[in-house]
């Protein structure tokens, strides 16, 4: 398979259970078995109160036992083997309920998806059902302190010693690694090869001797991101994903799934993190802010709130167009960078508009809610940096969608140990 082919999940399934009967079955089951979201709460807010991930694991197990976990995953790995239409129907029905959305990104949409594509049969059987059962939360160990965008220039070392590789180095920007169980970790196994050809992807157990995890305090007072330090950590050779020194192929596939997930096109996400109960998928944070600030009748504020809605709608429409286009071959898979870019620039605009509407409440406020737009604003660029910066997205779009010449790189085709790096 090319690392850039679209996921092979069917759009609809004429053979299996009819989507409407599935929807009704899901609706009845959810009402009977899943806890409702408290009014005004989103699943994202509940994640913040679920430090250890125990709530998410419990909810995921409930879904699994009832046959509603992994709707688009193959049956042989514990999934339901159903179509995207079934997953969309389930998500739509789930909006009023607490859902284990913590598992969506990166566990299901990125790492399980990559494992499906490149894992050995044994790896898939061992891990994918465990993820779907709620037993394994996964993270990705890709970025390093020495460089973000130049992922293939990483310097974490995995040295072969018989049946194991010995890992040394450091990874950064992994979300929630302290509560996760496994990681996909990209490390350098050949220093004499050009940078893309000396990398290997590993499955690694996170909590073990030699692994130290530090949470990073962010400007918006969260500490979800982590840095990990590896000191002679042994990884069995059977945990190599794909081929030794062909880790870049696997990583490219992983990044494709990441763009798919961030752009909203992944079939493997179930439920939505940021929709509050009672809003039927159409929540507008800026409308709520306008309500709180008493500015709903202000024509300028109305323009801003509506512009935000326009941006949200168009973002969803673009994601759908690109997903369809990649599936039909109208677009090459790197086109997934377009919804990613639009989502990021919309987020920047959304923060600016929130500041405009909130006014003095950005700088000084009296309520004790844990959410404040001013604190959130400080992390305005977060969405344009995480998951590959928007500069990288623009390179991908211009070079791999529009076919424009690639940027000059001093390290192209040179042995990595002859390349200058941090």
């Amino acid at each position: 398979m090319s690392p850039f082919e679209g996921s092979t999940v069917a759009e609809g399934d004429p053979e299996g259970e009819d989507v409407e009967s599935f929807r009704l079955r899901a609706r009845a089951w959810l009402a009977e078995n899943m806890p409702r979201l408290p009014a005004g709460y989103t699943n994202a807010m509940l994640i913040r109160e679920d430090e250890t991930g125990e709530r998410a694991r419990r909810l995921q197990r409930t879904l699994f036992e009832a046959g509603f976990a992994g709707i688009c995953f193959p049956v042989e790995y514990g999934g339901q083997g159903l179509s995207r239409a079934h997953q969309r129907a389930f998500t739509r029905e789930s909006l009023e309920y607490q859902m284990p959305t913590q598992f969506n990104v990166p566990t299901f949409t990125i790492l399980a998806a990559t494992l499906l594509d490149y894992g050995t049969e044994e790896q898939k059987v061992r891990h994918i059902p465990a993820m779907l059962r709620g037993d394994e939360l996964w993270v990705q160990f890709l970025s390093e302190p020495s460089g973000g965008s130049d992922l293939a220039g990483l310097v974490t070392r995995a040295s072969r010693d018989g049946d194991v590789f010995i890992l040394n180095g450091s990874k950064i920007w992994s979300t929630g690694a302290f509560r996760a169980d496994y990681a996909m970790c990209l490390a350098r196994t050949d220093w004499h090869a050009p940078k893309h050809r000396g990398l290997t992807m590993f499955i690694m157990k996170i909590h073990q001797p030699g692994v130290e995890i530090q949470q990073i305090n962010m400007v918006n007072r969260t500490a979800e991101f982590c840095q990990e330090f590896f000191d002679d950590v042994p990884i069995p050779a059977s945990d190599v994903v794909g081929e030794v020194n062909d880790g870049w192929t696997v990583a490219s596939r992983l990044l494709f799934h990441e763009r798919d997930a961030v752009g909203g096109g992944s079939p493997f996400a179930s439920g939505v993190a940021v929709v509050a109960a009672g809003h039927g998928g159409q929540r507008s944070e800026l409308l709520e802010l306008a309500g709180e600030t008493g500015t709903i009748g202000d024509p300028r504020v109305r323009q801003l709130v509506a512009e935000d809605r326009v941006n949200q709608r168009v973002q969803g429409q673009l994601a759908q167009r690109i997903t369809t286009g990649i599936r039909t071959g109208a677009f090459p898979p790197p086109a997934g960078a377009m919804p990613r870019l639009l989502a990021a620039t919309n987020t920047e605009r959304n923060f600016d508009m929130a500041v405009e509407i909130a006014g003095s409440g950005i700088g000084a406020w009296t309520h004790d809610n844990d959410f404040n737009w001013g604190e959130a604003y400080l992390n305005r660029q977060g969405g344009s940096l995480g998951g590959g910066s928007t500069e990288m997205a623009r390179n991908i779009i211009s070079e791999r969608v529009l076919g424009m010449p690639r940027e000059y790189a001093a390290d192209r085709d040179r042995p990595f140990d002859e390349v200058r790096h941090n």
Partner: protein
Amino acid sequence: MDLRLTDDQQLFHETTRKFLESTCPLETVRQLADGEPAGYERGWWKSGTALGWTSLLVTEEDGGGSVSGHGLLDLVLVAEEMGRLVSPGPLMPVNVVTEALCRSGTDEQRRQVLPGLLDGASIASWCWGAPAAGIDTGGAVRVTPTTDGFIIDGVSGPTEGGAEADVHLVTVVTTAGPTQLLVPSNHPGVRAEKMHSLDLVRRYAKVSFDHVEVPREMVIGEVGGAAGDVEHQLQTAVVLQCAEMAGAVERVFEFTVEYATDRYSFGRPLVSYQALKHRFADLKTWLEASLATAGAAARSVDTASKSAAELVSVAKAYIGERGPAILQDCVQLHGGIGVTWDHDLHLYLRRVMVDVTQLGMPREHRERVAVSMGMGEVER
């Protein structure tokens, strides 16, 4: 273009494209600008109607028929191609009026007016006499009831094809509410005054009504009961506008990429500069987003989705803002040649700016979105 066309739609699309390319390339558009008062030849328009341009929104009983069973989705293919070639022709007003007749016209009205519109023998305009559906159209037509009809007085807003039309669909507001009248252009007291038009081949006129007596038989639908029809007409018209703008922007983007690929400065092609590559990446993303929202709006109106009003205004607000931004950046990327008369860029800029500013500015469509979000109406 929609990424999932049926085989019949693909054939229809190709036929339309080939017809436009062979009969009305940009050189012809430039000639028509000076040579034809209407901006097009009637004989050419008749050939277009033979391809189906005016029958797609009309039921088979009334002499029409669609390609795919989704007439509006077929029609947007024509609008998009017309955007790509800044084609002339009264596509929007004629289709709005044929659809209005099918929705609410009496048997007699349909029998009298539809056949001519369907085969191109006659032309219709849509004439706004009053603000409606949240859009300030510039129309100011007063309506006074009489024993068997109305007397109307005043001037319409800019009316596409108003000077060439044989019949006007006039949208007014009576004390009972929005009302629509089908008035022949040669009816006593009706006069069209040509306006200057930014577009080279799409002409506008102000239609004035000087104490015009309108019998009740000229009302389409119910007196005071046309709000639903007016809203639907607006949605259809804006869907066509958005498809046309998206088509125009897509074509300009294509030839701007070609230009920047072929053009060398300092010994390297323009598209090798990262500062320009990144701008092209933004433009491409906005273009695809424009195509996506134009398609979503068309599908929502076609299926009479309950969010159609919002999705149509979302598309107009988005493309109406991004479209001109993309085109102006394409002008910048061309350099000085981009602001010369001989370059084709301004033909597209003219067309897009006409679409942006007619049938509701992005600002007005955002206000419609605000209303659809439950923010209530603002006191005017």
